[in-house]
């Protein structure tokens, strides 16, 4: 039996989605002429500004499209579901985002994305666009600490892209934008839990199997297996398991400040996310860590997967300024 989806034709789903997005948000988003999978901020790129190009597979909405807008990303290249875009639309984004001051490529650390974005960067260089790449690696569950470069990028993109976008919008130098982007990634820690799979529009079959009373801690946003599978626990126990690992890495001191993102992987409703946020706050209060701002909702999804992630973004003065810097995106509010 196929899973239920409100679609027409699985192989057309991404393009039809983009049609619907462009129709819905004409004040924020436009397509690059002739490159329908390259989406640009109407009010984004400008001369002298470092351009910010993000992108990756579809199915994570509002990531990446939702993060395109003034003060955040200038353009996003959109792939098939859970598949990196090919180099061409990335290159078109780079051209559209380029203001002559260099272009940052930022995306989650996945083999496919790295290959395609690298090919696009080479092609951009031939067009005299200097590209630098900052990979996000916020998923602390995806590799041990001594292999941080192998970690995946997940919901923490929200903060990582946000800081970089603010740095670009403030017309900082290419070096500074890159530095801030890297620093933001280093200050961002995510951990997720999955309860039920999603299904791809083309297959309409669950993309992984999980017992009716099981959860998987650390599972990736494409259903990549995590670090432990076991019986479903309470919201507090799940949140604690994630925070233990995050706090262990972050090693905060009393008086530190963070921003929080409690993110739904798709079908986990706000009620459950806010119950988790309550626990996050209890834990942070206990150790004297202050919370500067909190986002709760669907920010980095895996279609209709059930589960959630918690991201802590450790702030210093600079990162806080970047976070508070205004941005104007179609799908959410921040700054």
């Amino acid at each position, binding site marked *: 039996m196929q899973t239920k989806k409100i679609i027409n034709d699985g*192989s057309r789903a991404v393009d039809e989605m983009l049609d619907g997005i462009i129709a819905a948000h004409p004040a924020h988003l436009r397509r690059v002429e002739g490159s329908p999978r390259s989406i640009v901020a109407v009010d984004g790129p400008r001369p002298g500004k470092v351009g910010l190009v993000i992108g990756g*597979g579809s199915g994570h909405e509002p990531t990446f499209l939702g993060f395109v807008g003034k003060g955040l990303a200038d353009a996003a290249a959109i*792939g*098939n*579901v*859970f*598949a*990196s*875009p*090919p*180099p*061409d639309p990335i290159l078109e984004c780079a051209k559209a985002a380029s203001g002559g001051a260099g272009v940052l490529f930022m995306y989650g650390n*996945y*083999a*496919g994305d790295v*290959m*395609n974005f690298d*090919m696009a960067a080479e092609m951009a260089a031939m067009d005299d666009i200097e590209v630098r790449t900052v990979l996000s690696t916020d998923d602390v569950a*995806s*590799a041990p600490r001594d292999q941080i470069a*192998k970690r*995946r990028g997940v919901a923490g993109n929200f903060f990582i892209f946000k800081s970089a976008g603010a740095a670009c919008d403030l017309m900082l130098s290419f070096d500074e934008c890159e530095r801030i982007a890297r620093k933001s990634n280093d200050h961002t820690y995510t951990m997720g839990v999955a309860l039920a799979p999603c299904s*791809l529009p*083309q*297959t309409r*079959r669950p*993309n*992984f199997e999980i017992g009716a009373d099981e959860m998987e801690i650390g599972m*990736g946003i*494409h*259903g*990549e*297996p995590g670090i432990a599978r076991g019986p479903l626990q309470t919201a507090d126990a799940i949140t604690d398991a994630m925070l233990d690992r995050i706090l262990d890495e972050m090693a905060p001191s009393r008086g530190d400040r963070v921003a929080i993102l409690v993110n739904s992987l798709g079908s986990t409703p706000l009620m459950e996310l806010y119950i988790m946020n309550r626990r996050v706050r209890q834990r942070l209060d206990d150790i004297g860590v202050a919370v500067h701002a909190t986002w709760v909702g669907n920010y980095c999804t895996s279609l209709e997967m059930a589960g959630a992630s918690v991201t802590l973004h450790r702030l210093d003065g600079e990162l806080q300024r970047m976070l508070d810097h205004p941005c104007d995106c179609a799908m959410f509010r921040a700054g």
Partner: protein
Amino acid sequence: MTTISPAILISMFSRIAETMAADKDRLCALDGVIGDADHGIAMDLGFGAVRDALAAIDPSATDPTAVFNMAAKSFLNAVGASSGPLYATALMRAGAAVKGKTVLDQGDFVAAFQAMAKGIQDRGKAEVGEKTMIDAWVPAAEAAGTAQSEGKPLTEVLDAALVAAEQGAEATKQMIAAKGRSSRLGERSLGHMDPGAASAVTVIRAIREGIVSA
């Protein structure tokens, strides 16, 4: 069959596309175990796009390099993902390996085949034993080279390549993934065949059939 014309290459790609469509669900299922369940979609989409692009060109007005390049480009643009750059690079290298030829003799074809494996390695930087499509492609290219240097006919060269690819794919079950999505799985990737290695076998089998039946 001693020379391989652009028309034969085009029909070979069309056979790959056909086989991949039939294999799509199995490949997605394999990818579902250790990856993100889309490998069959990518391969089907990619070779489907190759077939459609090649169907539009006039075989008598092209050459093998152009066929491979068009295949590379259409695969890449349809797919992205990991398989896109890997197969696109493979196909471009195949095209480069036979640059200037109007038809391919056996030696040309084996060189193109080996260039594909080299292209995948260059693009993906994976080593044999890291549980990727390399574990099918590299032994297949080596076996083809050996058989070719032994003076075997092309049919047997490709037979040898296919057998080596099958063994290589089978061997990925015993490997711990070190590249691609499944590399974060650690021990949990043991016991499962790598989907990219599985699809490499499908590609190589279809190449063999496409050439043998030409």
